[in-house]
Each structure stands twice: as C-alpha cells, then as structure tokens.
C-alpha cells in the first residue's frame, strides 16, 4: 500500500501536467517509467512501468465497457524457423521458412483477455496479439533447395512454432489481465524486458477500447541500447573485426603468461 501510494503521487502529478499541456479531447494520456534502457555488464533484464489516464470526457458512461490494451514491440527483422526431419537415421534441419519483419520483442498486456474485448477483425487490423501478427505468404526452402509455398495448415504449424519459440525465449509475452485500473481513470501495467532482448527502437502503444472499438491510440518510443564497456566491445567487434581479433589473442596471451608466472614458484 505504501509503495502504491509512493508510486501514485508522482504519477498523478505527471498526469496532471500532461493533461494541462494537451488540448482537451476524448482520449488517453500515457507515459513510460523510462524511455531509454542501457545494457551494461550487470544487465539481467528490466521492468518498465506504463501508466496513464483517461481524459475526463472519455470516462465510461453507465453500461459501457472501457478497456486498455498495451502493446510493446521491438525492432523488426527476418526470422527463420527450421523443421527437422529424419534423414539416414539422424535428425537434421530439413525445411526452413523465413518470416519477414518479425518484431524482435512483442508484449501485450490488457485489462481482460483480448478475445473478450476485441473482435478478431479489429485485432487483425490493428495487429494486437502475437497470434494476429501477419507475415504474408510463407515459402519453405528444403535442404535440396526446392521451394514451395506452404498451404494453410503447414503455414500455421510454422507460425505457431515461431510464436512458441519466441515465448520460450521470453521475447513474446502475453498478460491478459496485466493492466489494472486504479479508480475510474488511472491505469498501469508493468512489462518485463528480458536480458536477451534485441537492441534498437521500441514502441509502446496504448489502445483505449470502448465497447470493442478502438477509440484512441497513443504511441511512445522506447530506446534499448548497450552502453559502457559492452557497447565498446560490441562496436569494435563489428566495425573493426580484424583489430578486435588481434586484441582478443593478445589479451589471451597476456592472461596465459600471467597465470604461468603466478604458478611458477
């Protein structure tokens, strides 16, 4: 309770400020607890707080349902899912499907399970929920380099595998009751960022949903990057790999030599 109150005070102050600055309109005011996450050597993941309030005019009238959905998604890149098959007694990667522009991180939190508050059509349009991400036509490449366009069933099997694998890595996340209302207008949720997140620009989108229709969306950027020594090492390895390699060997030489001296007696 104490912690809750401590959190609420700056929160309320912020919201009051934001409300004063934004012209009055039906909708949302939101913010994140941090807009930048720096990955250092002790980084084990982070938790960001996403909070906000409904504008006075958009408070629910009796009989109306008001829901919030929060979607945090990371930089997109191509992902390849492989399927193993048994060849001459051993299991090898036999087919692979490359999904274009998959979010490196994708978390959804909502006040109720998404299926209860939004129709499939709206979810597909807004791409809310990992199972509503669309990737276009999927083409499987076999080990013998033949390419076939997957039928619906096979495409679903590969898409499910992509989402399942991402979930296991903690990179896809779903919290059906993760957003909590504090009173009628304030809401908050926390999103876990694991240590293995891809770096880059993230967006946190907050949807205000009234009776199954999206009536407002606010998008806030979030930047995740390496800093300090981690950044230096990563940069060097990618911009000047030859120097990096020589440096790594010299470091190992020095360490091996030192150890031999220590244990010489």
């Amino acid at each position, binding site marked *: 309770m104490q912690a809750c109150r401590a959190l609420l005070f700056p929160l309320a102050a912020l919201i009051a400020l934001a409300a004063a600055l934004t012209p009055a309109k039906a909708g949302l005011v939101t913010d994140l607890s941090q807009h930048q996450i720096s*990955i*250092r*050597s*002790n*980084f*084990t*993941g982070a938790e960001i707080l996403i909070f906000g309030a409904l504008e006075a005019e958009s408070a629910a009238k009796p009989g109306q349902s008001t829901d919030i959905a929060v979607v945090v998604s990371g930089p997109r*890149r191509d*992902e*390849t*899912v*492989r*399927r*193993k*098959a048994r060849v001459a*007694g*051993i*299991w*090898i*990667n036999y087919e*692979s499907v*490359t999904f274009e522009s998959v979010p490196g991180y994708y978390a959804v939190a909502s006040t109720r399970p998404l299926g209860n508050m939004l129709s499939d059509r709206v979810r597909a349009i807004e791409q809310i929920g990992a199972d509503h991400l669309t990737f276009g036509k999927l083409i499987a*490449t076999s080990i013998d380099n033949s390419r076939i366009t997957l039928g619906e069933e096979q495409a679903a*099997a*590969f898409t499910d*595998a*992509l989402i*399942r*694998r*991402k979930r296991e*890595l903690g990179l896809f996340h779903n919290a059906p009751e993760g957003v909590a209302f504090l009173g009628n207008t304030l809401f908050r949720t926390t999103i876990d960022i694991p*240590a*293995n997140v891809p770096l880059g620009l993230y967006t946190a989108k907050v949807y205000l949903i009234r009776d199954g229709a999206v009536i407002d969306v606010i998008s806030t950027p979030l930047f995740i990057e*390496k800093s300090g*020594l*981690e*950044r230096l*090492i*990563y940069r060097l*390895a*990618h911009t000047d*790999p*030859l120097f*990096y*390699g*020589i*440096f*790594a*060997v010299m*470091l*190992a*030489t020095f*360490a*091996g*030599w030192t*150890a*031999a001296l220590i*244990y010489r007696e």
Partner: protein
Amino acid sequence: MQIYLPIAELSVNVFLLLGIGGAVGFLSGLFGVGGGFLMTPLLIFIGIPPAVSVATQSNQIVASSISGVLAHWKRGTVDFKMGLVLLVGGVLGSVAGVYLFSLMRQIGQVDLMISLAYVVFLGIIGGLMMIESARAIRAARLGRSLPGRRRGQHNWVHGLPFKMRFRRSRLYISAVPPFLIGAGVGTLVAIMGVGGGFVMVPAMIYLLKMPTNVVIGTSLFQIIFITGLVTILHSVENQAVDVVLALLLLIGGVIGAQYGARFGANMRGEHLRALLALVVLVVCLRLAYDLVAVPQDLFSLAPAGEK
C-alpha cells in the same frame, strides 16, 4: 551474480562460467589436451549460440596453451622444428575450416556439422585410445612389457620425400605426414572449437612415432598459433568471438589447468589415457544420442545471421 555477454547477447551466471572453465581446465591440465572438446558442447548446452561457442573457445585455448607450454619449454620437451612443420599445415587447414564454417552457417547446417564432427572424431579417437590403454594396463598387470618402439622400423612413411631431421624427437622422417596432420587438425580447430590435442597427440604417438615426452609440449606449442589464427579469422568472418566470455572461461581454465597438471604427474600414463578415453567416449555418446533421438520440438529458430 549475472553478467551480460556483449557478443553472445545474453546474461549468464559468472560462477557457472568460472566453474565450467575450472573443471575443463583441470581435465586439460591432467591430460595435456586443450579441453575444447568438452567446453564447446558445455557452452552450447547452457545456451551460448554454437557459432559464439566455437569462436570464443579458440580464444580461450590460446591462453591455456600458453600457460601450459611454458612449463614444457623449461623442461625442454618442445620440438620446435616439428611444431613449425605442423603449423604450416595447420594454417592452411584452419583457413579452409573457417570458410567451411561460415558456408555451413549460411545454409543453416552448422549445428549438424559441429555435432557430426564431434561424434566421428571423438568416437574414433576415444575408441582407439580405450583399446590401446586397456592392453597396456593388462600387460602391466601381468608383468609383461609391450613391444616398444623399434628403432629403424620402416614403413611406407619412410618412402616419402622431403625428409627432415627432428632432433628433439630423434626422428628422421618426411615432412609430408606432419604437414598433413597439421592441416587436418587445423580444420578441426576451426569447425569444432577445439585445440585439436585429442587428435594431434595420438597422431604424433602412433603415426609419427614421436617419443611421448615431447608430444604434449609440441602439440601445445602449435595449438597456440593455430587457435590464435582461428580466433582472428572467426572475428573477421563471423564476428562471433566474445572476449568477456573468453576471459571468464580462461580465468577458471588457467587455474584449473595448474592443479590438473600436478595431479596428473602422480598418475600412470596408461591409466591417464584410459580415463581420457572414457571422458571422450561419454561426450561422443551424448552427442550421438542427440542426433538420433526424436527431438522434443521439431521446430527451431535460426540464430541471427543464419538461414
């Protein structure tokens, strides 16, 4: 205490890494092999991407081999001339291996290549060593001595050209077999993330017929340069060397190796070889099982940069 590895891009417990380094270092000091054949599968097992495991492991072996070779150098048990011939072959082999590695990464079969290479080489070497050391142990128990190396014994190897005199090894043989052995082992260093001692040492003893006392020092000597080269090549070609990971492994490894070497000095050669053979065979069987057993999930996600 967790630490974030900048190239592997994940967070791992420091003490786990120090512990793995220490345990593998102990075995490497005990047997006089790099220990990479244990380390690489262990790193992959704890979730480090295979490419990063192999490349980083090469870097770590540079350090452990240097601290190992210095002791041999002082005792005069390094045949530098033999080492250089092995090295010339090794340079060619490792360059070929690194390019093969990045080719396999591009077609998504690098894991399979690593596993198959492990199963085949560990199986052959472990099996042969087990048979040989069991024979030696039985002979010692019966009080007989096995027929030793007969001086002047000639076989096809002696018919090859480019004969060289290797004083330390008391050999006068063609440079071709050590060159080929160096090249073969160099390739394995690049694709398996090993020092190659587990292939090099038996090859020196049984094929080149070098005296046992110079084998380990000479093997370590050339391993330093080959793994150094492989580290640089993997950095350039795959950007997969994680210095933070390497440093943690080698701190554990270097300390472990010192104790391993002392412990090994009190053990009989044939017992040591039997024990090493056993460790090699267990790792081999474990990897072979993973290749043939039905996987828990047929689907997997390709690491970044692979198809």
